[in-house]
């Protein structure tokens, strides 16, 4: 049983990478769960399947056979389940009553940390039932608070079943069975947030995993250009020789300058990421966008880099 937690700046590819990791891990006899906690239906969009509910369902096959199960954890369902389990307050009637009174809304959105305790608690239950759980977690700005349930424990019941449960959840999240991976792209803001998130997670004593650099473009051609661009006259001559309009030279050179600038930026940011002291994984930009086929291709790239073996 192990837990892979994916965070990163919004839009960098947390959901995509979480799905790829789940696919890379699944194999015959190795049960893998891919779970999301924000009700965004990101998993079903990425894998192109019907929206996920609170019931587990097979969402795709694993790279080496087997299958990936998907689940969307929802705080109010988790809350009602909690009540049933710990207080034997049963049945949908109770859920309805609590909902009408606004209690579920209160406990799941307003009460400090309760929502996160419920969500991580539910994830913990799942981790015990699967060999591998991959969690599409909240973005960098909220990840520390989300995972650091232990800090909220003091505010909660000091005794009783909830207290005990929250403590085992905290122990799991701080154990070697857990890995927190940060997804980034080679742009300034995502890298900055990655640096900040790693520092925060380290501070909380949460076990760090890899930094995943997502959407890597081939810069082979740009690398040829960095030693200096040819003159416009030379480019024009070569274009004419290839029976192309020599007037295109200036636009080609402008494109070249842009490629160099991007190369330099990615080079600097890549070095910054390499200096963060975590293993780095690279995933290619998929030109046609993301669907189940691309997720499998990305899973393959993870395996080629020795991840999840």
């Amino acid at each position, binding site marked *: 049983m192990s837990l892979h937690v994916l965070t990163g700046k919004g839009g960098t590819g947390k959901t995509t990478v979480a799905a790829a990791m789940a696919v890379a891990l699944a194999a015959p006899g190795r049960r893998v769960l891919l779970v999301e906690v924000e009700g965004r239906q990101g998993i079903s969009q990425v894998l192109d399947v019907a929206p996920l509910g609170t019931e587990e369902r097979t969402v795709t096959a694993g790279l080496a056979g087997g299958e990936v199960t998907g689940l969307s954890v929802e705080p109010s369902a988790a809350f009602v389940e909690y009540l049933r389990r710990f207080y034997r307050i049963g049945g949908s009637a109770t859920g309805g*009553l609590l909902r009408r009174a606004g209690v579920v809304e209160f406990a799941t959105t307003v009460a400090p940390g309760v929502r996160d305790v419920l969500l991580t608690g539910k994830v913990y239950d799942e981790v015990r039932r699967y060999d591998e759980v991959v969690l599409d977690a909240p973005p960098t700005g909220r990840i520390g608070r989300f995972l650091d349930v232990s800090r909220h424990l003091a505010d*909660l019941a000091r005794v009783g079943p909830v207290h005990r449960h929250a403590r085992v959840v905290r122990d799991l999240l701080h154990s070697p069975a857990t890995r927190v991976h940060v997804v980034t792209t080679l742009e300034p803001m995502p890298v900055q947030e990655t640096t900040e998130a790693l520092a925060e997670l380290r501070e909380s004593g949460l076990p760090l995993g890899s930094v995943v650099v997502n959407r890597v473009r081939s810069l082979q051609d740009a690398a*040829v*250009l960095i030693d200096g661009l040819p003159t416009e006259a030379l480019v024009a001559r070569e274009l004419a020789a290839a029976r192309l309009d020599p007037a295109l030279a200036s636009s080609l*050179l402008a494109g070249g300058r842009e490629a160099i600038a991007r190369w330099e930026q990615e080079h600097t940011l890549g070095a910054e990421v390499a200096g963060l002291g975590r293993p780095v994984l690279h995933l290619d930009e998929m030109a046609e966008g993301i669907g189940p086929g691309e997720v499998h291709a990305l899973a393959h790239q993870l395996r080629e880099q020795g991840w999840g073996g």
Partner: protein
Amino acid sequence: MGRVIRLEDLEVLVCCGAGGVGKTTTAAALGVHAAAHGRRVVVLTVDPARRLTQALGLPGLGHEPRPVSGVGGAGGGSLDASVLDMRQTFDDVVRAHAPEGTAHRVLDNPVYQTLSTSFAGTQEYMAMERLGQLRDEAAATGRWDLIIVDTPPSRTALDFLDAPRRLGAFLDGRLARTLARPARMGGSVLEATLGRLVGRGLLADVRAFVSATDTVFVGFRDRAEATAGRLRQPGTAFLVVATPERDALREASYFVQRLHEDALPLGGVVVNRVVLGTGELSAGRAEAAAEQVSDPVVAALLRVHADRADTARRQQRLVRAFRSGRPGLASVQVAERPDVVDLPGLAGLAEDVLAPG
């Protein structure tokens, strides 16, 4: 197609869209442009990139609007910039509405402290509230004649428009009443359950918060509705920003639809960070030529071009599909630029936004 907006006609402009598409950059760029054309502008940004605050020459940008130097000048224009500070804005609301001498009871309450920074939707609501504050100040002092507001990076467009109602619904207090009067039917079960789940101390804080805020929040929702209502007045426009990617355009579609349903004035859609200007040489021909030329650097230039042309083709396919479903919607494409790092770069971006579509 028409322009997405004409700044001359506007007093308030709201930039919205998915996270990372360039809302904040666009808002700042339009501010720079308008100031250069004689407007007295204030831009409210949310989470600006470090590079942007550097471009504005205001590394320590905060809640209070501060003048950006090097814009405006002869035409009498000016640009002030600020960053949304949720906590500060919320505190101002409390101070404005709390009865004499009771504000501190709210401000010191731990539940308020959590609510004011982490309730889902607070940031969205506070962006609107802050717009109301800036509007009041503009009306009272004449300091600004154009307010440009950036919005929080909510991936789902709906958050931004729904947040005031959701926050209002909570503060308005069905639950508040349940908690204040635990003896109601079912109250004992709720009370016991909640108490055991979240701790009695917290429950007591909630109760204190609810009673202390009763008066404060009477005016709260009215204010939210008034702010939203004013967005429908002439002189206001929304600008939806997207990038030429499937998800961002899908998000833009939701937004366009939602603004329409709510009768909010949509200026148009800005498709930002588009690869433009590759049309004269197709990817295929560039690839083929790269095989022919003798100079390896020129070959690399041709392959770089082929890549860009390929990206451009895919982007245009997405943009066409997006536009074809919405005839009559004004939209404009803005180039991916290497230079949004200084004021001239921002001004250039604004020119693109304001060009006839």
